[in-house]
């Protein structure tokens, strides 16, 4: 089936540094999402993105977070600066429309030390 690819699968970064998580969504999809899952907790919605814009974001989407998809390339989540509480697995997802199946990637495990 359609695949959402996330690169890298695991990243370790020093607190205060910038990190960019990359997502290659399903090729014809138009809507993109990021979810965050802290170890042992549920996945939580961060943000969705359509037509070059953030459509909706949760309170977890701090000012240090930003998303973009320049020129149809990777859909990225940037955290600058990182904090210890940003350590989590970040899942990227995409869908063709607002009422179609949402496909998830395998996640990127971010460890902030």
């Amino acid at each position: 089936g359609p695949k959402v690819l996330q690169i890298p699968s695991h990243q370790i970064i020093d607190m205060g540094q910038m990190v960019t998580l990359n997502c290659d969504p399903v090729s014809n999809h138009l809507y993109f999402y990021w979810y965050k899952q802290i170890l042992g907790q549920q996945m939580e919605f961060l943000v969705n993105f359509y037509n070059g814009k953030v459509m909706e974001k949760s309170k977890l989407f701090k000012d240090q977070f930003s998303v973009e998809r320049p020129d149809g390339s990777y859909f990225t989540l940037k955290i600058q600066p990182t904090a210890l509480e940003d350590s989590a697995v970040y899942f990227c997802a995409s869908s063709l429309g607002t009422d179609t199946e949402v496909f998830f990637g395998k996640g990127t495990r971010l460890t902030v030390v």
Partner: protein
Amino acid sequence: QQQVRQSPQSLTVWEGETAILNCSYEDSTFNYFPWYQQFPGEGPALLISISSVSDKKEDGRFTIFFNKREKKLSLHITDSQPGDSATYFCAASTGYQNFYFGKGTSLTVIP
């Protein structure tokens, strides 16, 4: 406040038995409930979903029972197979996006 709760946290059944996974939610405006299946090292994959206008959705061995009044739903997996061993997430949303997920139920099916 956790919007979606799942129980049990883990479940073990024998091959051929029916596994029952439970889910409840808080927000009465939720109208779409997908269940996702996740194998170790993989991302969650949509297994089956139901909208709030239905009380039952069946797809092969997988059936969702939905009780809108009690804000509860359950996933029944009949004739469980070892290949069904995975973590199952219940989710809820208004519309079809921006899901609230439960913490998941880890299912083990013993041959």
